[in-house]
């Protein structure tokens, strides 16, 4: 049934198998998961009534115990004040970049000469964790004009509305550099 097409070669990614000894960081991902779940619960219920809090806490605890194994593989960063500060800084930079890129693309669209030079470039990232690569890729996609097509190993395929540099180093600096600085501080 399954036809193997000769697509681009991907590095083999280990499928999450049965739990073979808890990797380091189990407690950290557990705290991340429980905090995240409880925060989402608070947003959904938008109530501080003691009954809601009890049910939310119990549910977060049960789900964090059940699903911790999946989160362990993501590589969540430790929760330290310095990293939290950098997360806020990253969110601010991302918001500013999104606004700037929106204006830039809008300018290109209404310009009579349509100054675009679309193409696909490859950039490189030093980030190791899956979740860090995901955040970088999604930040690049969120800013109009650049779009992450795929991540292969430590390289990201980017569709760029205005290709200003074709070599990896310059493209990396122009597209990924603004986000990667903060992500590196958060995840290292």
């Amino acid at each position, binding site marked *: *049934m*399954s036809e*193997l*097409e000769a*697509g681009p070669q*991907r590095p083999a*990614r280990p*499928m*999450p198998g049965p739990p073979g000894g808890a990797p380091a960081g189990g407690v950290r991902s557990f705290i991340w*998961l429980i905090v*995240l*779940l409880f925060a*989402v*619960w608070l947003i*959904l*219920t938008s109530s501080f*009534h003691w*009954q*809601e809090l009890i*049910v939310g806490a119990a*549910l*977060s605890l049960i*789900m*964090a115990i059940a*699903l911790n194994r*999946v*989160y362990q*593989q*993501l590589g969540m960063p430790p929760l330290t004040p310095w990293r939290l500060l950098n997360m806020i800084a990253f969110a601010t930079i991302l918001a500013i970049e999104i606004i700037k890129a929106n204006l830039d693309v809008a300018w290109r669209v209404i310009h009579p000469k349509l100054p675009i030079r679309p193409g696909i470039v490859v950039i490189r990232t030093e980030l190791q964790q*899956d*979740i860090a*690569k*995901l955040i970088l*890729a*999604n930040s690049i996609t969120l800013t109009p004009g650049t779009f*992450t097509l*795929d*991540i*292969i190993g430590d390289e990201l395929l980017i569709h760029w509305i205005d290709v200003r540099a074709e070599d990896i180093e310059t493209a990396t600096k122009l597209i990924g550099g603004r986000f990667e600085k903060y992500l590196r501080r958060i995840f290292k």
Partner: protein
Amino acid sequence: MRVFLSLLALAVIALGIAMTLTDIPFGKPKADIATHYVENGREDTGAVNIITSVVLGYRGFDTLGEVAVLFVAAMGLGAVLATGTRTPKANGWEPASLVLYTGCRFLFPLIVLFGAYIFIHGHLTPGGGFQGGAIIASAFLLTYLGCRGRRVHEAWSSAVESLGGLTFVVLGLAGLTAAGHYFLSAFLPAGTLGQLFSGGIIPLIYIAIGLKVGSELAGVIDRLVEESQ
């Protein structure tokens, strides 16, 4: 002659339909059950969400039937699609992109939590066990799309499903022996209207339905994935 007979038969049928239709008082509420539900639903059942008060308070037995229908449908699908043995894991499947692979693992607990929120608050906000269960199943669907090769743990899935159905029936039987003396009677205190711990057995039943529907639909998706391999 045949034409005449056909016309006669048609006339009889037309007359019958016309007589039936003229007897139905369109636009007039024949029974005032609906107004009773709307006006007294909150006090009778303790559920702020009037639809829930009808579905689980007044017509709980009917809902048990619906759950049974869904169960039979899922079983039928399993019987039709069953290939005998479960096929070995994802051989020859190209893994999904890292973005999808990581994103679905990150989102899975959050979607399940959202589904749980929907069925736990079934008596307070729009939604309920069926909707919450469908949301939970969608989390499993995302896993099948993004993390190919991951499967529902069959023993756990059927355990949760059985537990959900059993809870529903046991709550109904408990009503039989307790204060109400009929199947699925509200034997638990209704509590303060609008709080999470209110509505007697309604939230408990919705949690049972939510778990049951979620595991059932996840099982259906699992069967379909198995078949398309």
